[in-house]
């Protein structure tokens, strides 16, 4: 095995993807070749440094930030104010009560107008007598 071939196998060797015969061949080359052995040592230590890199925690508030952006871009279609069932029930009830009150007030108004019209002496349907006309003239 030459140096180039040995170094081509470093990644597969590190990831344990070589056949047993390839492993044997590479290891015997590394044992005999100081240059490739040093190269392998540097490769191995590089891999240790990479695998030892820290994992970072995701920044706090990611969910809220994403939802706010979606809400803004969708013009409130998604992640807008969510009303609970009890809140929705209260709103519907309030509107119904208002409608009933309005209807009641309207009906009361109509009744009062009708009563007034019925009490009006001029429009009670009777024709005034001659005496009543004279009294009105005097």
């Amino acid at each position, binding site marked *: 095995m030459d140096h180039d071939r040995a*170094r*081509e196998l*470093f*990644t*597969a060797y*590190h990831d344990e993807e070589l056949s047993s015969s390839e492993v044997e061949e590479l290891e015997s080359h590394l044992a005999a070749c100081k240059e490739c052995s040093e*190269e392998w040592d*540097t*490769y191995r*230590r*590089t*891999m240790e*440094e*990479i*695998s*030892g*890199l*820290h*994992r*970072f*925690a*995701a*920044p706090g508030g*990611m*969910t809220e*930030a*994403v*939802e706010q*952006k*979606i809400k803004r*871009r969708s013009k409130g279609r*998604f992640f807008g104010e*969510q009303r609970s069932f009890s809140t929705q029930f209260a709103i519907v009830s309030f509107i119904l009560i208002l409608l009933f009150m309005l209807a009641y007030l309207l009906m009361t108004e109509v009744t009062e107008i009708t009563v007034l019209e019925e009490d009006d002496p001029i429009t009670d349907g009777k024709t005034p007598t001659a005496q009543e006309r004279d009294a009105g003239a005097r």
Partner: protein
Amino acid sequence: MVGNAEKRLVRKLKARAPGAFESLIENHQSSVFNLLYRMLSNREEAEDLAQEVFITVFKQIESFRGDSSLATWIYRIASNHCINRKKYLARRRHYDSKSFSDLEDRVQPAQGKSPISGQVPRPDEMAEGFQMERLVQEAISGLDEEHRLVLVLRDIQNLSYEEIEKIVDVPAGTVKSRLHRARMALKEKLAQHLR
């Protein structure tokens, strides 16, 4: 490809069920952010882009067919966003690696080279560790785009070759040759600091 729990989550996501999207972000935000941070070497850009990745997931969940895992699909969206953002930043000549200097304030001590309980490193050892981490990140930043992506997915995110093939959309042989070239290039860059 997709487990039952994931199928249920996808169904809920497609139905816009309350809590489903929050659950998805909770499960994947760390891996997405880490991928983007290692690719961009800039915390603010990585954070902003991670949000865009999840917005795309929200918009495109209807098109997810379950041919791969949800994680692989999200990684693919993140990789595409990353490539586009790099192009955009290159056009604007805005990109730099300045924010890696705040590494000391930002590391999550629960993973990676975190101190084992009872074996707290001395300040000089810690400083040396951060210095080395900075050098490694700078070396990664210096790799070609396609080499860097494969290296980050394989050696930092610990994905399988099969998953990387689906994310990058290239054959297994190409993934392996890119990874080998990336590792060898990194070895050359770091050799003087490792001897």
